């Protein structure tokens, strides 16, 4: 119960935050929330289910491009794009999950990097479909109407922020329920010992595929939100650097600790803003942090604190 209370207070605080801060800070907070969604999603598949993925940027991009391309071709709105982005990214997650059934550790990691590269090549080269290097613009979302009556104008920074906040809350709720469900425990069993998991009769195929789909769908949702709030998509927003950043957030916070990747995302997403003119070194810092954390405390900050508290 205490967990829910703290979470509720945090979200209440974040919900009123835009009234007290400027547009720049609201933008930063929104970006932090995107990364929270991405890091929590990656934690499902890597932290809980033990399957490596360096393709977060690819699923994020698939969600974003789904929104941009649907806007262009069907003139649909964000309310359609949110489920559509989740479904399209989820299907690609399923596609990538299939090799995961047969591959382990390093092989899977290589395939996800290859997938990330292919997706980047497609969105940056297939100019007629994706806009190529220039990307695609997106119009403002426009008013939200029910039976022809305008409820409110949608499209201001704050409205995107609140929507992102709501989707983040939903992400956390779903993920929290998932990892504490029977399915979540199956993931952990697969991570700890796959042979044993299948020997005691767990369906490891189902376990791995669900983890991949959940991860990809969440990244897709983050992509839709990003595309709309940035008013467009360009391929360079969805590179392997995004994947590396999210891996760093998850590992530094602590794989499979739930709260760890959230804190990792908050910390590492805000860090470049604090660095000022040194912000260009952020990827260098992420890389060094990854190496240091994996070497010195592979369980991450939260994992280490928990282990210490348990002793």
């Amino acid at each position, binding site marked *: 119960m205490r967990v829910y209370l703290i979470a509720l207070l945090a979200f209440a605080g974040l919900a009123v935050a835009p009234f007290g801060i400027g547009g720049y800070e609201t933008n930063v907070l929104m970006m932090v929330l995107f990364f929270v969604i991405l890091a929590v999603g990656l934690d499902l598949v890597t932290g809980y289910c033990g399957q*490596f993925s*360096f393709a977060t940027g690819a699923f994020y991009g698939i969600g974003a491009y789904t929104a941009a391309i649907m806007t262009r071709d069907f003139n649909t709105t964000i309310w359609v794009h949110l489920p559509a982005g989740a479904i399209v990214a989820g299907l690609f997650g399923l596609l990538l999950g299939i*090799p995961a059934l*047969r*591959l*382990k*550790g*390093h*092989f899977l*990691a*290589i*395939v996800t*990097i*290859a*997938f990330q*590269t*292919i997706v980047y*090549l497609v969105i940056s*080269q297939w100019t007629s479909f994706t806009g190529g290097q220039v990307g695609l613009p997106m119009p403002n979302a426009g008013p939200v109407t029910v039976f022809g009556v305008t409820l409110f104008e949608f499209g201001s920074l704050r409205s995107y922020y609140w929507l992102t906040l709501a989707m983040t809350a939903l992400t956390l709720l779903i993920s929290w329920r998932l990892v504490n469900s029977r399915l979540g425990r199956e993931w952990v069993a697969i991570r700890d010992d796959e*042979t044993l998991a299948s020997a005691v009769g767990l369906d490891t195929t189902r376990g791995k595929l669900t983890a991949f789909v959940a991860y990809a769908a969440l990244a897709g949702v983050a992509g839709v939100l990003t595309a709309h709030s940035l008013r467009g998509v360009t391929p360079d927003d969805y590179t*392997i*650097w995004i994947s*590396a950043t999210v*891996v*760093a957030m998850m*590992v530094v916070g602590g794989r499979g600790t739930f709260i760890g990747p959230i804190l990792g995302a908050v910390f590492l997403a805000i860090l470049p803003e604090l660095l000022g003119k040194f912000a*260009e*070194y952020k*990827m*260098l810092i*992420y*890389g*060094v*942090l*990854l*190496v240091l954390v*994996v*070497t010195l405390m*592979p369980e991450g900050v939260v994992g280490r604190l928990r282990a210490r508290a348990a002793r």
Partner: protein
Amino acid sequence: MDLFLQYMANGVVIGSTYVLVAVGLTLIFGILGVVNFAHGEFYMIGGYAGIVAITVLKLPVLPAIAFVLLVAAVVGIAAEAILHKPMKNHDATSSIISSFGLAVALQNAALVVMGPQPQRLNLDVSKIPVLSSLPTDFGPVFLPQQRLLIPIATVLLIAILYVVLRYTWTGRGLRAMAQHATVARLCGVRVERVAIVTFITGAALAGTAGMLMSSVFFVYPIVGNMIALKAFTVVILGGMGNVAGAAVAGLLLGITESLTSAYISNAMRDVVGFVFVILVLLFRPQGLFGKAVERS
């Protein structure tokens, strides 16, 4: 038909680079069990070291090569100290994340030090004694000396590697480690030394490839990404840990890419290898030339 031979020759040149990078990668995996995602950065550093040696330090070619090898050795020793030595008590997958982190760090360090603009080594071949006397026309095929040098150097280096692995004590130690690490240790193989030698070898091969290629293609901070992926493709096609397999698969991939870009489309050239690798992983995970083994 004339063009076909030219495409084949270009493929062999590119493929030779893949061989040099992939052989080191497969050695490090086969002997130490480390999957080195930072291997492409060895190539990138070799390229930059070559450019610095020749354009900044104004060294002649042979000392420049020695400089590149020295830098590669330092990088190899450092990489071993980061990716292998502290990981003994960690689970095997930790090196995946730490080498990925190292790759990210090295790329961005290169970005800070060398800048984002692509650079190329202007190698004046006419001033280099042996190289300038090599022919450039082979019937319908034209290969400038800078390109011709790459397959020649590859053959030389792989031959040296073969002799070292086959006939020296160090080489025997390396092969013993690859076969069974525990038994090798029991027989008196100094594991720490083998690990360092393996990383130096891998870095030297990839660094040399980077230097040779820097006179043909541009070097930029993230050039290693694509090279590493190609090398992984080659290593998987050839069978993880299989040096001869990597050599054959490297040439095959180079030629396939060259023909794809010539006859299908240039945009497809980089995708072909990945499609290949995903298919091979799904249907023949032991590689095209590997023996089937039980993976547990």
